[in-house]
């Protein structure tokens, strides 16, 4: 079942992600004030920090829709589990391969978004057997424990000049996966789990349900309020070196997690009501965005190849050091233009792939994983 609301939001996440990555990697080493590209020195106009939570939240929501489809087709639980774990492992392996081929072999365990979503899919196979209240409790525990775990793991020690910098040791790899990586399980697993948990209420999937309820809006607003409280509390507390303070994505502070989760929940609920029809209203078709959304995995992979590989090649050709142009290749405005150009090409390519049924990362995922 394709829903226009999910297609629109996933497309928005892709657009944000492409723009942010192009600017960060091609021109992001210095902020507008000339400072280093970390923390408050990021470009103020760059919409960083919204794409990944939205993407992860939608992965949980989409998994619930997929799961309902599988159950509707009469697939038994074991078959669904096999397909889920295969999907998760495929994404995790693809994530490792992506890290090796795009970010160099030494970054294979940087725990990027693909490994997170792969892990999350495997976790969702457990979550789907858990009572919803326990899943909610687990999400609360993850959010609550994450700052403490970062403190235990000495998060700042794993980061150098705004980037995850680990050693090839079991300790660093495991801690990166759990706490200190780019998208560690703590707290990022909350987004897909919350998407899975909220899907029935947001999309009105319960049998006999008349449609989306107000619950998700109320919960979303409560999470946003919780984010504001966390921000206020962070400002009032004494500064420490380990606790994530204020609104930060790396590490994902409590305010950031609650705020982005609340925003994702509200946006999905509102768009579902506006776009997906219901009652006498027909759904609003979004064919182009639907194509973009359907091929989001391919676009995620391609957009890195499209700007990172040329960056490495040019850097190597000019200086013999492949990373020499990283974050200094061009001014931000040119990077935004490149991102726009890529998005236009990606849109046309996604439509073409839809019409010609050309092989893609998504078709390979289905071929390998689905029963």
């Amino acid at each position: 079942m394709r829903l226009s609301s999910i297609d629109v939001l996933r497309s928005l996440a892709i657009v944000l992600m492409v723009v942010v990555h192009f600017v960060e990697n091609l021109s992001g080493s210095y902020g507008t004030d000339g400072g280093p590209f970390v923390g408050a020195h990021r470009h103020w106009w760059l919409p960083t920090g919204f794409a990944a939570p939205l993407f992860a939240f939608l992965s949980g929501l989409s998994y619930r829709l997929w799961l309902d489809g599988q159950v509707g087709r009469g697939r038994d639980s074991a078959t669904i589990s096999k397909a889920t774990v295969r999907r998760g492992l495929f994404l995790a392996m693809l994530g490792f391969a992506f890290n090796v081929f795009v970010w160099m072999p030494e970054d294979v365990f940087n725990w990027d978004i693909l490994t997170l979503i792969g892990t999350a899919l495997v976790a969702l196979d457990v979550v789907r057997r858990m009572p919803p209240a326990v899943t909610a409790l687990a999400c609360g525990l993850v959010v609550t424990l994450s700052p403490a775990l970062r403190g235990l793991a000495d998060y700042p020690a794993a980061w150098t000049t705004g980037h995850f910098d680990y050693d090839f040791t079991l300790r660093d790899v495991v801690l990166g996966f759990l706490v200190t990586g780019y998208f560690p399980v703590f707290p990022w697993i909350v987004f897909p789990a919350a998407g899975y948990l909220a899907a029935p209420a947001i999309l009105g999937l319960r049998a006999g349900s008349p449609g989306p309820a107000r619950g998700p809006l109320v919960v979303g607003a409560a999470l946003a309020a919780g984010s504001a409280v966390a921000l206020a509390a962070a400002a009032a507390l004494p500064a420490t070196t380990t606790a994530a303070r204020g609104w930060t994505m790396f590490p994902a502070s409590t305010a950031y997690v609650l705020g982005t989760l609340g925003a994702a929940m509200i946006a999905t609920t509102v768009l579902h009501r506006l776009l997906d029809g219901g009652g006498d209203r027909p759904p609003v078709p979004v064919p182009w965005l639907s194509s973009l959304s359907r091929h989001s995995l391919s676009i995620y992979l391609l957009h890195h190849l499209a700007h990172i590989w040329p960056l490495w090649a040019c850097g190597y050709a000019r200086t013999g050091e492949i990373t020499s142009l990283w974050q200094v290749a061009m001014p931000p405005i040119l990077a935004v233009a490149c991102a726009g150009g890529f998005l236009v090409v990606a849109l046309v390519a996604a439509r073409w792939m839809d019409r010609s049924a050309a092989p893609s990362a998504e078709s390979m995922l289905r071929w390998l994983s689905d029963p």
Partner: protein
Amino acid sequence: MIIDGRELPEPAGTAGIPADAVEHVPLPTGRPFELAAVALGPTAADDDTAAVDAALADVVARARAWVGDDGRPPLVVPLFGTLTVWGPHRTLVAGPADRLPQLKAAVVEFAALDGELHDIERHLATLLPLVDADAPLAFEFADAALSRRGELAGRFRDAVSLRRRLAVLAPALHVPAPQPPTLAGQLGERLRERTRIVDRAGFATEQADLLERVYTACGERASDFAIARRQAALEWTIVVLLAAEVVLMLVGALTTGTT
């Protein structure tokens, strides 16, 4: 007048039945019931058998037209010089004026029993087709069916209510006819036999039993499922807390192991 989706035929006056002979009798089920009593007195033509037969045939034809056919054709019960044309919504009794009160009493008593059974049968007819869809839940309950618990509980209540009504009805149906025989008792017996009311009550009891069995089992499965779910929630909560503790220990061990 429309009863149970069917329109009764023409009103009393136009069918040749005197309008003032019709009485509206309220039945316990709330269903309207019309009872017409027509006195047949001795006439000069009583010695002429052919004339008497023709007159009776005319009365019967008029009565049948008035009583109507709601799927069950009217029953004509001649008894000791009286005539009863029975229908579930309208009945006509005809006979000597001094016997009409006994006939009316017998008809009203029977109409109450038949009306009650008819109402039970109607409810059973609406519930029975649902059994096939609900029967799997009597064997195994599932998450998807949790939202239907109220609906199933409602059907269980309906089934028990129907079974209770049948239990109350049964003694009245099986009450022996008075001895020595009376006109009212004989008419009641005839009507019971001709409408097969005892057999119908037996079938209805079997059907209500079936419903009760299915929805009792559904209730037990739903209750067991809810209890198991609560236990599972507790077990999962413990698992989640243990997992959180393991993560804390693991991170703590990894950190302290190198410092």
